[in-house]
């Protein structure tokens, strides 16, 4: 029944781990060939792999795990998917209905535990309802603002026979609004026609909305010639090589992007949510602008920042209307104002906030990523990351031309996300180049999944920027906690090359800038999983940085900028 429901939903891959309470479903999986099951090494890995799969394909990811610890291990992945609006369906086994509440072996109150970390969840007590609930779960996960859902299935419900409901017969009252309010759209277009300093502030919602949204956004940017910046989650919705691209914004965003956000007179938020990593100090956030916000989730609008033009709807639907109305009104923009605005932006660009100096043999992490970008940008490439400094550097130094090419844990900031996510992406795109840009500490959190990569011959490249530190923690301690480096270094690290070999993968060590290109080429040439241990400068900090509690125009720039004048005052550029 479960397998049939998955097939009818077009599922081709399930990430899972068997256990007592899901054995009947595993028995069904054993007896068919349509759905491929990827055996992970830890249930958290299954959820992140499903997230990677979902984000790289635009289809929902599916996870199958057992009751009790199987379900609790999935909680981090569920929360991660909830924060980043990734559609995944987690099926959990449960003890038989007559044993629920008796503290049975491997029993946990799964729907209770996962209620706040799923978009919705169900405990199915009747076999007759099982297929209907699974179909509704897919509908809920993928419509409106996408998110994770969970279906808890007791073992006796799995064993029993019941009637099957095909997807088209399932009734649901959950149908979020997708068309935007035309009056608000007209208001936005009127603002666009006169704005002197407009900026598009885009986010993951564009990517979640689908390829049509990306196309329409690009068309709108090209037609209006407005500058565009994006959050971490939205990278790829506008090509990094595009001429209107300002780079990522936010706490570690580019100088020109943050300055444009601060000084603009019209901010058009497309599928982003004014996260605290983006806004910095709220009372100093873009003080002079009119703000429009296009979002499918009514609770995102006016949550943090009060906006002037709220537009509730799906990005693709709304952008289509915006374009149509703008064309109908004569395709006008304030050309004179825009020209001045671009002059100002080009001044900011001259600051060249990402510059760094690679000197000597010690590899700067920025240099490692710059070389990686140079040597892989022509490839059919997907990037995943862990969480920390390397993640920010990857966002700054790697360029994304298309959506669905960049998978990272944005909202929850889950260390250990990248390795399993890279596996999920590689399963979806077996012929493509999949690289997980990692830090050594994050990477160790889910390194068991190398076993999965080797078992299924998934040639994922684990590109570890190894500074033997929890780099981002160290950076905060240096800047904000009086250089007291409390527990932020990695001692007793494994020999990553030997570790790779122990898993049956290839290990590469590089500690010399002169050898870096050759080493990266060796990694790319190898037809199998690789752990690349790139030893980098240990005390490099990630800049630009907006210290928390500060405004966008109070960014700190890097050492290269401040040179000798590195007292606190001198490094705070206005």
């Amino acid at each position, binding site marked *: 029944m479960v397998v049939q429901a998955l097939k009818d939903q077009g599922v081709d891959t399930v990430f899972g781990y068997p256990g007592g309470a899901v054995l009947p479903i595993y028995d069904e999986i054993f007896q068919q060939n349509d759905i491929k099951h990827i055996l992970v090494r830890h249930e958290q890995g299954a959820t992140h792999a499903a997230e990677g799969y979902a984000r790289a394909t635009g289809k929902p990811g599916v996870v199958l795990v057992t009751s009790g610890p199987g379900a609790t291990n999935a909680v981090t992945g569920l929360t991660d998917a909830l924060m980043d609006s990734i559609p995944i369906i987690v099926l959990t086994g449960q003890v038989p209905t007559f044993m629920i509440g008796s503290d049975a072996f491997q029993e946990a109150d799964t729907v*209770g535990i996962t*209620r706040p970390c799923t978009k919705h969840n169900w405990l199915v007590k009747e076999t007759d309802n099982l297929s209907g609930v699974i179909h509704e779960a897919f509908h809920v996960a993928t419509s409106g603002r996408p998110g994770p859902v969970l279906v808890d299935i007791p073992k006796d419900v799995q064993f029993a026979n019941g009637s099957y409901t095909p997807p088209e017969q399932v009734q649901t009252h959950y149908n979020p609004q997708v068309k935007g309010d035309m009056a608000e759209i007209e208001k936005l277009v009127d603002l666009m026609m006169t704005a002197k300093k407009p900026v598009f502030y885009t986010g993951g919602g564009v990517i979640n909305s689908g390829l049509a949204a990306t196309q329409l956004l690009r068309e709108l940017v090209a037609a209006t010639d407005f500058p565009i910046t994006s959050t971490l989650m939205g990278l790829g919705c506008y090509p990094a090589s595009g001429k209107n691209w300002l780079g990522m914004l936010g706490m570690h965003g580019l100088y020109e992007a943050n300055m444009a956000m601060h000084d603009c007179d019209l901010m058009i938020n497309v599928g982003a949510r004014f996260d*605290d990593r983006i806004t910095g100090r709220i*009372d100093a956030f873009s003080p002079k602008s009119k703000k429009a916000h296009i979002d499918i989730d009514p609770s995102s609008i006016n949550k943090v920042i009060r906006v002037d033009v709220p537009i509730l709807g799906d990005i693709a639907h709304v952008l289509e209307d915006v374009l149509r109305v703008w064309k109908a009104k004569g395709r006008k923009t304030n050309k004179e104002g825009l020209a001045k605005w671009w002059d100002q932006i080009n001044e900011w660009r001259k600051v060249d906030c990402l510059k760094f100096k690679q000197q000597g043999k010690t590899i700067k992490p920025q240099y490692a990523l710059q070389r990686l970008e140079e040597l892989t940008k022509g490839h059919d490439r997907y990037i995943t990351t862990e969480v920390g400094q390397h993640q920010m550097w990857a966002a700054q130094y790697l360029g994304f031309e298309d959506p669905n090419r960049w998978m990272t844990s944005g909202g929850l900031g889950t260390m250990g996300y990248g390795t399993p996510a890279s596996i999920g992406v590689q399963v979806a795109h077996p012929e493509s180049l999949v690289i997980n840009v990692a830090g050594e500490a994050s990477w160790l959190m889910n390194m068991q999944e190398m076993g999965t990569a080797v078992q299924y011959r998934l040639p994922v490249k684990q590109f570890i920027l190894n500074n033997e530190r929890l780099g981002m923690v160290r950076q905060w301690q240096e800047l904000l906690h009086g250089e007291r480096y409390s527990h932020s270094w990695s001692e007793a690290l494994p020999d990553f090359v030997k570790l790779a070999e122990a898993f049956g993968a290839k290990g590469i060590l590089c500690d010399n800038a002169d050898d870096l290109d050759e080493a990266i080429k060796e990694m790319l040439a190898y037809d199998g999983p690789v752990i690349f241990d790139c030893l980098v400068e240990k005390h490099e900090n990630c800049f630009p940085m907006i*210290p*928390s509690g500060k405004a966008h125009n109070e960014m700190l720039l890097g050492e290269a900028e401040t040179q000798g004048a590195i007292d606190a005052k001198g490094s705070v550029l206005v």
Partner: protein
Amino acid sequence: MSPLKIKKGSTSHSAYNLRPTFSDVQERHTLAAIVENEPGVLARVIGLFSGRGYNIESLTVAEVDHEGHLSRITIVTTGTPQVIVQIKAQLGRIVSVHEVHDLTVEGPAVERELAMFKVAGTGDKRIEALRLAEIFRANVVDSTLESFVFEITGDPKKIDAFADLMRPLGLQEVARTGVAALSRGAQ
């Protein structure tokens, strides 16, 4: 890069000191949510309030449409105007919630609550309690020689007033149902 020399204990140490500068006027609103009558739906609503730090002053829930599997949850909450809007949006996006109504802003509404008071006493106090109960149109639903149980229905403020009067007269125990509310008129 040298440290920023931020004073120990200063809020700049935290990334989460970024409270919005919205109005801080507290408002009291009565919300009605029509929800799917299914296990866990109340937990979803309560979990939303506790998880996001919203207030619940009173909450009542009961099935109102057996055929349609629908229950009505009436919540009285307080918060700034911006928080109230958030609460409604957050309630609205729970999958099992069909409709959310803010009875405080959607026009006039009637609010009623039922309460029972146990009042113990003899002599003058007992007579006075009974006399006041009549004025408030409370019914006696249980009586012994030294106690009454009154049942009273009305606006929550009326019940508060009755409670204040009963306190010096030997009030022992109170049970209140919380507010049930409906908008006035044909719609």
